[in-house]
């Protein structure tokens, strides 16, 4: 394991703690939008799909990479949109 791997693991471990800390005080009514919002954030996988597709050189790899990009793209766009739609309603009522 190289130093680079260790550093990346370091970032990984710290991210775990940040993830725990940052949502520790959420009122239960915001649980659904929060789940939806974090769901959108892991839509970043579309980037992985794109990077893999960029290196694809067989028809099978192209097809699977293409599907990965579609899935990831639906995850990221749909995720943020649906969260926004939910939260729009919270906004309206608080006058």
């Amino acid at each position, binding site marked *: 394991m190289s130093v680079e791997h260790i550093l990346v693991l370091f970032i990984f471990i710290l991210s775990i703690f940040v993830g725990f800390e940052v949502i520790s005080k959420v009122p239960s009514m915001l649980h659904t939008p929060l789940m939806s919002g974090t769901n959108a954030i892991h839509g970043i996988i579309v980037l992985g799909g794109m990077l893999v597709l960029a290196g694809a050189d067989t028809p099978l790899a192209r097809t699977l990479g293409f599907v990965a990009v579609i899935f990831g793209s*639906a995850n990221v766009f749909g995720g943020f949109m649906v969260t926004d739609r939910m939260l729009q309603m919270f906004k309206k009522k608080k006058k």
Partner: protein
Amino acid sequence: MSATPSILYIFYIVAAVLFILGIKFLSSPRTARYGNLVAAAGMLVVFGATIPLLHEQSWNLNCTLMAIGILIGLALGALGAYSVKMTAMPQMVAAFNGLGGGSAALVAGLEFLRRAHSAEGIAPFFAVTMLFATLIGSLSFSGSIIAFLKLEGHFEKPHTFPGQNFFNGLVLLVILGLCGYLIGGQTTNSTAFVILFALALFFGIAMVMPIGGADMPVVISLLNSFTGLAVAADGFTINNLSMIVAGTLVGSSGTLLTLLMCKAMNRPVTNVLFGAFGSASGSKAAAGGVAGTVKPIQADEAALLLAYAQRVVIVPGYGMAVAQAQHQVRELSDELGKRGIEVQFAIHPVAGRMPGHMNVLLAEANVPYDQLCEMEAINPSMDRVDVCLVIGANDVVNPAAREEKTSPIYGMPIIEADRAKTVIVMKRSMAAGFAGIENHLFYKDNTRMLFGDAKASLNALVAAVKAN
């Protein structure tokens, strides 16, 4: 990756900060919507920084496929997000999560197959991250589909058979064995890898099928964090820091959210996942019998009770969501408000199919914030409530959680509706709730049952209250 310009990492740091701030803002009602936009901005930063990297070579077929793929995903996502009814939000989150999981599994699988056939082979470290992402991602994909179908009303009941946990354990063992085999040097064996992929998909189905529809929120939340971790593992594999950070944030916050949900139901997470809730123990409790009789009431009489009350508490549940009755509920509460009656909504943390489900629906109907009360806030004053109107809620108001030691929901915090002077329960029939157990509340002396579709009953109530 040494060729990666350091400026890229600066952008990744900015994006990481935006993701963290986004989640932070999402956890307060005042800033929640802003938080979602901040997270989306983080995503834009990542894309803006990475896409130029892809264009080192000239435009080729892969680039075209990428652009088309993104547009199709955008169209699917927008269609799903804007066409879905507010009541079907949980399904939508499950669907998007499943797609993310599938994507993560495909990315890992493709990298694995490509590297397996490359000259340099696969280092054990990457074999682990790739197999992990494949496993967890495909499990999340198939599990989310089942969760989606269950929330859509297909095979809602837990599906169990004798020795199920043993069987699932066996499948898991085979999966782990295959992983060990692949990591232990046989990384060029594509057949073993494909079998692993298929088994992981199957395991996702086998894991979620025995879980009842009522527990789907917990399952979706868990699968959401799984997908996050799969994305993080992919980030390790293709050495992309922003994916590691984003995936890990989702993984850990999703795990915490899952635990919070289980805590609200007073059940350990293992019980949700492996307990096959509501099957054996549930029917036993129901067979135990309940004292008292069911006393139906007509809308006119119920309206009289409401119209001459001083304090009314409304307990909404999944039945309100199914009947799409949130607007009628608000109409009724406005009508009662005009008569000077104090109306409050008591929201159980797990009412509906997702925590916060009821808040979202009531918000859609413009019920004012200050009328919504959390369970802990309202319970101490429940015995000063004249009429408690239970609309399509069941397990979350079942006093068995307090009184019946043998009940599977014993110890779960409930809204103590039974302590109100009169309880009116609106329900379609006497069918048991998702936990599959009798509700003792329906047999109490102070309870009246108003049978029928929630929307129709509420319309009748509103008309009758107006007439009084």
